[in-house]
């Protein structure tokens, strides 16, 4: 059985370093993009099993990426976890309204995040 594939879209190398490291250790295949456009393109071309999507991305915001992906039939049920440093109620509402599966605010526990990723993949797999 191939490893589940996770696409990480985040432009901050310092968080990507840890995320990538821990996701790989948890047994996932990880691909990283650092802007919204690439995230949209990669996810549309070859939908991953799960998308970790930062809200504040250059070129195309996480919200925009999420909304556009949901419009694509292939990505309609793709689990998308949005990551943000803002964490206001209204922003969470917006993310969920635009199609995010889950919403995680920084600082988050990577340990918990890995557990959440696992449960989402189990459910959709």
């Amino acid at each position, binding site marked *: 059985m191939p490893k589940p594939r996770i696409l990480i879209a985040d432009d*901050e190398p*310092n*968080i990507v*370093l*840890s*995320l990538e*490291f*821990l996701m790989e*250790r948890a047994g996932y295949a990880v691909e990283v993009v650092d802007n919204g456009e690439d995230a949209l393109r990669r996810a549309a071309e070859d939908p991953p099993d799960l998308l970790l999507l930062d809200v504040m991305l250059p070129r*195309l*915001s996480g*919200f*925009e990426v999420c*909304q*556009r992906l949901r*419009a694509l039939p292939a990505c309609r049920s793709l689990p998308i976890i949005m990551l943000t*440093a*803002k*964490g*206001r*109620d*209204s*922003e969470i*509402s*917006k993310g969920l*309204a*635009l199609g995010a599966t889950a919403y995680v*605010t*920084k*600082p*988050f*526990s*990577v*340990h918990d995040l890995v557990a959440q990723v696992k449960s989402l993949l189990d459910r959709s797999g």
Partner: protein
Amino acid sequence: MRTWPRFLAAVAAAVVLVLAVIAGYTIVVWNTLDAARREALVPLAAAYGDTLLLLVIMLALGLALALAPLFRAYVVAPQQLAQAARLIATANPGHRVTAQASPEMRELASAINLLATRYESALREARSGMEAARRDVEQEKNRLAALMSELTHGVIVCNAEGAMLLYNSTAREIFAQRGTALDRTLLGLGRSVFALIDRTLIAHSLGRVQEQLRRGVARPVVHFVTSTPAGDLLRAQMAPIRGNSAAPEGYILTFTEAGSELAFAERGEELLQSLAETGRAALGNVRAAAEAMHEAADLDAAQRGRFLRVIREEADALARRLEQGARAHADEMRAQWPLEDISCGDLVAHAAAHIGQSLAVEVQTDAGATDAWIRADSYAMLHALAWLAQQLRDGHGARSVFLRTSVSGQHVHIDVGARGIAGVEASSAGWETSAIAQHGELARRTIKQVMERHGGEAWQQADPAAGEIYFRVLLPLGEPMARAPVVERVYESRPEFYDFDLFHQSGQTAALDNRRLADLAYTVFDTETTGLEPSRGDEIIAIGGVRILNGRMLAHEAFEQLIDPCRPLSPGSARITGIDADMLKGQPTIDAVLPAFHRYCTDTVLVAHNAAFDMRFLQLKEQKSGVRFTQPVLDTLLLSAVLHPALESHKLEAIAERHGVSIIGRHTALGDAMVTAEIFLRMIPQLAERGIVTLKDAHEAAQRTYYARVRY
């Protein structure tokens, strides 16, 4: 002299008394005599008859001489003393009575003089006390006036009925600058504040103030947002003026223009927001790195070094950012104007009006959350909503937009959308970060910034089934009333400045006819015209007006407007009025000016000299201007004829001279209006002396004069 006959009467009475005694004695003696002696006495009496008469006259003279000093001392003197006392009491407290002949009268005179001295000094004391008090009040008034004019906030004080009692120059600037030139005069003492601010908004705010008063809030105050007649937003604050009763006697409104305070608060919010975000992000990175090191005990030195470097970098960056933030905070947060409570209904109504006007699109409102309150910078929010509507118009060709509100949990949704637009996909591309205004206070602000300031979000959604595309603005629900602390305290009954008479003046809706002339509000006006025959096409070229309130001419609130008559002027009129064709070029026409003048005259009685002439001009313009002047009218020409029927001339100059009013600016509309106003003010007490007290009295008296029959 009424004392002379009384003296004669007294002398006569004395003579009669003496004669009566003698006659009585004679009769008694006569009765004791026998017949022979009586007969012997008769010729004797006849022989001395003449002498007897002489004796009586001498007796009278003697009595008169004897009585004169007594009469002077005890009858004339008290009368003189009484007159002198009356003089002291009514006209001249410095007057003193002169020394008297008799000791009793000397006593009385000195008593009167003592009383007069005491009275005079008491009077002087009272006067100087009054003078000092007046000076104090005057000084206080000047101080208050100076203070008010220095305020950067506009201030208007109203009584409970909404009549303005006081305003400062900033309020005047705010409303003048924003209103059209013709509307400048809506602000004025005694005028209704509802001409400036929506009655329902005032009523609503007053209701909220009263609610706070009932709850015993220490400093009841309500913030709201309003707009000037020209449509610009103002931040307003209402505080009550408490009287002796439970309901406030009036209220103080303060205003600032919405734009000027914006920057401070917005930068403060932004700063906090960005600090929180960078803090969270940095902590997130540090935590993730720490967890990675913790989870993987088998890291090699290179990997370990990379995670440690992340932790160090993030910690340093965070420390730097906090340092910067603290400094920026100190700089920026000095003054902060809070977001104010505004109901969704008000916001949407404002927005609908603004969008309809500025974008020329049809706006439907579909308010499901009219009563929900949000805390908003409504100025920014209004422009943000309008900008979103503009995107629908420009981007999707929407001719009509809808504004829809609903409440969802702890949030309010405000949707700006359009219907019947097929095949559009919702997108977040670009619009969030475009500037919503190119200049002004909101220059280069974006929807994103506006949303961040409100703790809100905005996105676009499409509902293909309903053929709708809309922007959804999500804002946190506010609390309609800030939780003000409940404080038990006893308050002084009213602020320390004035006793404004108008607080106790009821509105002018009562039957005017029975109101006293001295209590009414007047607009005294005059027109200049191209000629004397309105029915032959002569036109008004200038209107000047000035108001009288509480017996005072309000010269600072005058109305003065030149009018383009749209016809050539006769050379004669230019000579009289000093207004030539060039001056009238570019002035508004009569149909624009009369509605403004009509507003100026609201709730007042019109006064003019030879009013029939001016009123005729106004009446002929009723159709064209769409306003009718139905106010009661008083004519100073007729009133002058009432006061001085025998005098020939009732021309304005002649009356002015008679009343000691100096004429300045004769034959300018405003100059004449002011002269007429001063004359009218001086006529009011004279009319009252003749029993003409009410408006009805004045009308009836005027109608009886000859001049009332002249027609134009």
